[in-house]
């Protein structure tokens, strides 16, 4: 079973990304959970969302304390939320930042694999403005999910919510981040 913890701020779409990740993994035939940290949601306040992905039915219902992957959608949470806490030593920390992996390692003290990508820039250049979809692309790349499944699910889920033009921009941002994270070699 893989456990994932998302760190974002209310309104950035971390919870939405976590839900789409669950859908993508259902397509892969996996059992899934996706849930936000339960509490009042306020725009801009730190929030957490969680995923569990497994080959068998998932029985546990607690929060995730020792994730395999921690995803930081908002760089300011590196200090405010300590996203490396409990993160498995052989896990992966994925950060939306323009800094280098070495810089993130220095700031977090995390000794495992670090993947950095400038999701804000990717979202800006694609014209979507939201970092959650590029971060989803990075997470699926780290998980080794086939691109076809990722694209299919994002088209299915987001196609209902936005114009075709905006959907294509999101797919472009997703793809760019997926390829960037796939190529990232920031292992220990």
């Amino acid at each position: 079973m893989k456990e994932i913890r998302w760190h974002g701020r209310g309104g950035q779409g971390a919870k939405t990304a976590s839900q789409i990740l669950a859908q993508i993994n259902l397509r892969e035939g996996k059992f899934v959970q996706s849930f936000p940290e339960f509490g009042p949601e306020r725009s801009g306040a730190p929030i957490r969302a969680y995923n569990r992905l497994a080959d068998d039915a998932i029985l546990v219902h607690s929060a995730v304390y020792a994730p395999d992957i921690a995803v930081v959608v908002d760089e300011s949470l590196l200090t405010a939320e300590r996203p490396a806490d409990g993160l498995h030593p052989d896990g992966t920390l994925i950060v939306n930042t323009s800094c280098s992996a070495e810089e993130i390692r220095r700031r977090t003290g995390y000794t495992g694999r670090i993947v950095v990508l400038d999701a804000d820039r990717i979202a800006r250049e694609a014209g979507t403005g939201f970092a959650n979809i590029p971060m989803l692309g990075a997470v699926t790349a780290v998980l080794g999910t086939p691109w076809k499944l990722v694209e299919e699910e994002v088209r299915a889920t987001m196609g209902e919510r936005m114009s075709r033009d905006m959907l294509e921009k999101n797919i472009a941002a997703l793809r760019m981040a997926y390829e960037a994270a796939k190529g990232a070699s920031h292992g220990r």
Partner: protein
Amino acid sequence: MRKVMTGHKAVAEAMRQIEPDVVAVYPITPQSEIAEYYAQYVHDGIVHSELVPVESEHSAMSACVGAAAAGARVMTATSSQGLALMVEVLYIAAGMRLPIVMALANRSLSAPINIHCDHADAYLARDAGAFQIFCESAQEAYDYTLIAQRIAEHEKVRIPGIVNLDGFTLTHTSQVVEPLEDERAKKFVGPFKALFPLLDVDHPVSWGTFAMPDYYFELKRAQAAAIEEVAGVFLEVQRAYASLTGRRYAGFIEPYRLDDAERAVVVLGSTAGTAKVAVDQLREKGEKVGVLKVWLYRPFPYAEVARALGHVKQVAVLDRAFSFGAMGALYNDVAAALVPSERRPVLSNYIYGLGGRDVTVEQILQAFAEVKTARPTTGLRYLGLRE
């Protein structure tokens, strides 16, 4: 087909398939989305229910009583304070033998105000005369909503039913659910048969009458007989559902690795899943432990619980609410179940998970470790509490 959905979506889907004539509902966290989904179905013309957007839960249950007495198939849903406001009328619904089925998204009771999960609301309605089922997962919440409808409407039963699902833990977690196709679900639940409907003006009847000391007792005794009938009907409907779906539902309780267990926990709701994970971990180390999950909480399955626990040496009963000034409500039921037995485990009672306090595998491991040396006592113990 397997889908990803939250617990409230799963319940709303079951309600859509049941398609009651009347849904009277008032929103309250963490139930609101059930009401919202259903309102959307009505708005979109997907269902043809009369949605009554009442001004309070007292009115919601009152509208349900009126509609059910008139001869309609009726459903509602609530949580916490909403149930507290409904309880006055819930007793009336039970006394009038009205088969109103409701989802209860379990949430703590104020004060202090808190929107998160515990079982104080379910325990509040414990003696109202509704049957109560507790669910471990969104899948069970879906399945048991269909099952509860058929039980409530059975001619031997005709009382309200409550389907409990843990607030947030189940209502707000997206998870894998495999719903039935609409036609199969509708066929399983079957058509509604109104009994003595007020709207049958050719056969006038009186509902909600007055009863003096000369008859009140006999009428309440008849009501007690009705809820006792739930047991047999539950097994019959559950069996039909299991054969339709292939799900492994068999009985009022679900024992997990209990056959040769020396220690066990007894739980309601989603904690059962977390407890199973704890049991698997301890079993790998060779410890003989198990879980007893109680599906049917009212009427309480005394004989089955006693049979399932008779051989166990140490049992921890986990209550997710206080019964202030007394042992936990589930503990009292389990203790009562074991009184007639010759072989009785040592019982411990834990209060845990109040107001949404996260329930972890470690807490269950702690209970298993502590009860190794527990002696019979009437004191409460706690999991996940700072003292």
